[in-house]
């Protein structure tokens, strides 16, 4: 039985100008200890999905359909108090910008012990000891002294480590990391991703990693879901997804991103046009206007996720990418050279 089961989640934002359909029927399962990546560009709804699951949508947002089953309960139906118990304890979240997610006027030590005293009912001394240990686990030197520091006294990478420490404090079953390294320098990003990989293994927790960076999911996630305009368009084990990107959008993303290990070639293959307005409902596939494989049916009927190639590789497309158009494995050339 899956640890987390999301079915047909729908989220809308109600603004004066228009109603934005940010998430349009998203479903997925998460097994214990599994690392799942949700990849997509800005505005595709990937962050909103996780915020909706935990009941922390911004004011204008509302869940208009679906359910999120966790440990026998539908999280969407839980009352605030119960949800707050889950949030931070069983399901923890790490955000992109640690400066705004940490309280700038409270010492770090206080912010961590708060989590421990509230959720695990620890007393002051134990929580402090635990806090020191946590900071040590996430690689912050001189942990004891640093408990008395404020967020602004830490660098970006260090702050992110603190956030991660707070997130794993209660040994959550699921850790959701929303663009955790986007704002960080490349070498710091590598450190943080390595830390996440290590902690996921140590804690045996499941990880949902939300990002726009294909390289990041390639290195961290067992399974990857590709999101476009509020829906999952493809989901597969990561290796399978990169080897056989059957959805034209996935293929397009892979072809348009310059790779570090690729020999310098001619033009990149960008996806023409721009992502659609989420305030409009299109009758057919949202990607059709930009798709080289689109047909009349694509424009009229929204495709559902169906299994292709293997039973755990699902694609939502009427005309998936044929074999001859799949990318050749650059890695083979690289490995040889």
């Amino acid at each position, binding site marked *: 039985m899956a640890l987390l089961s999301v079915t047909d989640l729908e989220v809308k934002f109600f603004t004066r100008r228009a109603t934005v359909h940010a998430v349009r029927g998203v479903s997925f399962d998460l097994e214990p200890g599994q690392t799942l990546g949700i990849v997509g560009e800005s505005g595709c709804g990937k962050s909103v999905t996780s915020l909706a699951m935990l009941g922390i949508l911004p004011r204008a947002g509302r869940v208009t359909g679906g359910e999120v089953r966790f440990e026998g309960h539908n999280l969407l139906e839980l009352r605030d108090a119960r949800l707050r118990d889950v949030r931070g304890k069983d399901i923890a979240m790490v955000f992109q910008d640690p400066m705004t997610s940490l309280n700038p006027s409270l010492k770090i030590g206080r912010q961590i012990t708060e989590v421990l005293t509230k959720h695990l009912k620890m007393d002051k001394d134990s929580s402090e000891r635990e806090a020191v240990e946590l900071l040590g686990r996430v690689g912050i030197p001189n942990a004891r002294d640093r408990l008395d520091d404020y967020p602004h006294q830490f660098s970006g990478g260090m702050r992110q480590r603190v956030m991660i420490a707070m997130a794993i404090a209660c040994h959550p079953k699921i850790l959701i990391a929303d663009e955790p390294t986007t704002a960080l320098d490349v070498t710091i990003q590598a450190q943080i991703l390595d830390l996440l990989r290590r902690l996921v293994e140590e804690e045996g927790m499941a990880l949902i990693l939300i990002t726009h960076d294909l390289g990041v999911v390639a290195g961290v996630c067992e399974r990857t879901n590709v999101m476009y305009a509020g829906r999952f368009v493809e989901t597969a084990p990561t290796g399978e997804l990169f080897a056989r990107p059957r959805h034209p959008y996935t293929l397009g993303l892979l072809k348009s991103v310059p790779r570090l290990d690729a020999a310098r070639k001619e033009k990149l293959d960008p996806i*023409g046009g*721009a992502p659609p307005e989420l305030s409009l409902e299109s009758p057919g596939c949202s990607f059709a206007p930009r798709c080289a494989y689109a047909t009349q049916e694509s424009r009229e009927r929204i495709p559902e996720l169906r299994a292709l190639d293997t039973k755990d590789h699902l694609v939502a497309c009427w005309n998936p990418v044929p074999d001859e158009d799949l990318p050749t494995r650059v890695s083979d050339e690289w490995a040889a050279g």
Partner: protein
Amino acid sequence: MSIAEAEAAQISLERPSGLWRDALDRFRRNPGALVGVFLIVVFIVAALFAPAIAPFDPQKQVGPLATNPQGPSEGYLLGLDEQGRDLFSRIVFGARLSLLVGLVSVLVGLTFGLVFGALAGYLGGWVDFTIMRVMDLMLSIPGLLLAIGLVSILGRGLFQIMLAVGIIQVPIFARLLRGSILGQKEADYVLAARSVGVPGRKILLVHILPNSIAPLIVQGTLAMATAIIEVAALSFVGLGPRDPRFPEWGTILAENANRLQESAHLVLFPGLAIVLCALGINLIGDGLREAIDPKLKS
């Protein structure tokens, strides 16, 4: 067709919309702002058409002298004062004075505030330091006291009062503009203008100022409300405009303050006029702020 042309064809832009048009739209949809506009329009009409609207001459005695003047009654919409003058007419004519004072003093404050703020913000260095210290000094004295001081020096003519009330507004505007300018000075588009070779003067006028003005527009509106109240306050302490031809709301209030028990109408209605006028302006100011606030644009 080149790739560029193909991409150009794919871009569909909506109806052209200027920044001001968007702001106007937002303003129009704000119920508070509309109420404010309604209120102010009422007062403006009253001020402009005072002779036509007021049933009596505000200076003439039209009713009996009384120590206990009658309140709203037959023929006298808001009642009479103890000199037998029609209160409604006096209030209507008073609108002229209040609105005039509000407008002129804010113009004075804005003009000087703009100049000082621009110099301080753009030039920086000791110019900035000196100007800001002077502004700090002015701000450290409560507005009304400063106004009283200025009026004592300048005199009680209408113009002097407007000047005084205007001067106490200067530091707020100067600070606002300076802050705005400092913010814009480092913006990329200013850097871009420099890299193109645009001369400093032009950068200030064409690039920085237009983008720094918005907060001043809002503050200017709100300052009008403050000015009206300041003048009323000045009148209340006896330093209001001396011209008996124009009954200033504050003066009316002051004259009758001790009659609250018996002739409440003489205190209530001028007070209400002041409040509603200031309220209207504040509502408009808030509406403007929400309409112009760039955070609302994504």
